């Protein structure tokens, strides 16, 4: 019989706390975890409801048809995002991560899940708002009621659209960078096995 490594002896004989959980506590904690996820989803839905409310109010008070069309498209975009959130949350509940998978498989699944979420967020979280934003900003800048030369209208459109485009671009760039870092980790994990 081989002798135990002194480090192993030291490790095994660490002082232990008295820690026990009853089934009631386990159930309570499991429920709390689910309720955290529900709260997070509710915040997302509330934010979408706010966007929908504000642009619905604009449709009600602004007579300009193109501005109303833009606001309508933004509402449709928000509704699409809500639907995606709902289906993704459902898929996460049903599939979840398999905690009893081997550590390498679990790690790989988690990295792939993060990669997929980051790579897709542009498509379902930001892009649905683009048509509505463009129509809305364009309609405001080029409305016949605005008494301004064409150059001033173009400038108004560009200065309003530029910061939005910059934010969208920044998000896309950060996501692409994060995806690249995840790809590196996935590759390293495959090589480690």
């Amino acid at each position, binding site marked *: 019989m081989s002798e135990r490594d*002194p*480090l*192993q002896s030291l490790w095994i004989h660490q002082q*232990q706390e008295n820690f026990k959980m009853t*089934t009631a506590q386990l159930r309570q904690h499991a429920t709390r975890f689910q309720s955290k996820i529900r709260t997070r989803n509710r915040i997302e839905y509330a934010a979408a409801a706010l966007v929908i409310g504000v642009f619905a109010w604009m449709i009600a008070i602004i007579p300009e048809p193109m501005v109303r069309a833009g606001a309508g498209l933004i509402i449709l975009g928000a509704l699409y995002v809500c639907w995606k959130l709902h289906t993704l949350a459902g898929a996460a509940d049903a599939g979840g991560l398999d905690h*009893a998978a081997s*550590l390498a498989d679990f*790690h790989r699944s988690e990295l792939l899940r993060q990669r997929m979420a980051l790579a897709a967020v542009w498509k379902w979280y930001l892009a649905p708002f683009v048509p509505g934003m463009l129509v809305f900003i364009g309609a405001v800048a080029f409305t016949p009621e605005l008494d301004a030369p064409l150059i001033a209208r173009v400038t108004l459109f560009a200065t309003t659209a530029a910061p939005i485009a910059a934010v969208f671009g920044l998000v896309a760039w950060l996501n692409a960078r994060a995806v690249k870092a995840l790809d590196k980790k996935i590759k390293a994990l495959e090589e480690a096995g």
Partner: protein
Amino acid sequence: MKPVPDQDQLYFEAAEAFGPALQRLARATEANEERRRDLLQDMHVALWRSFARFDGRCSLRTWVYRVAHNTAATHVDRERRTRRDTVDIDAAGELAGADSLARQLEERDGVNRLNAWIRRLKPPDRQVITLYLEDLGADAIAEITGFTPGAVATRISRLKTQLAKDFKETTHV
């Protein structure tokens, strides 16, 4: 969640047999006492939840270590994204002089220093070394981690050398 008949029984059996190992893993993962207790609770809850789907694909021991380590890895990942103060990198750099590694570590806070050293490692290394310290063989570790036994043995050897080097270096500072 609707419990299956054996879920509670399996959990209590596992908690009885592996409770101390879960505590050691929590200590090697999280330095902050409050968050460590949260992590330990998370491990127990994850274990209890997992037994609703226990399918006998592996032994109870392998199942418990997989669930515990995967929960710990998720914790580390989440903490890294939300905090920057979890890892006490310098903790292993204050060792008092002693001739052998074992004697150094037998000092009053040797375990704390060993835990601090483990917390500095990347997840796969941390997982392998803690499983080794639990006195598991390369085959058992390979089954838990999903690495090959050869890769596990190489990793253990490298980590032990690194551990000895890091602890020895501090005695000459």
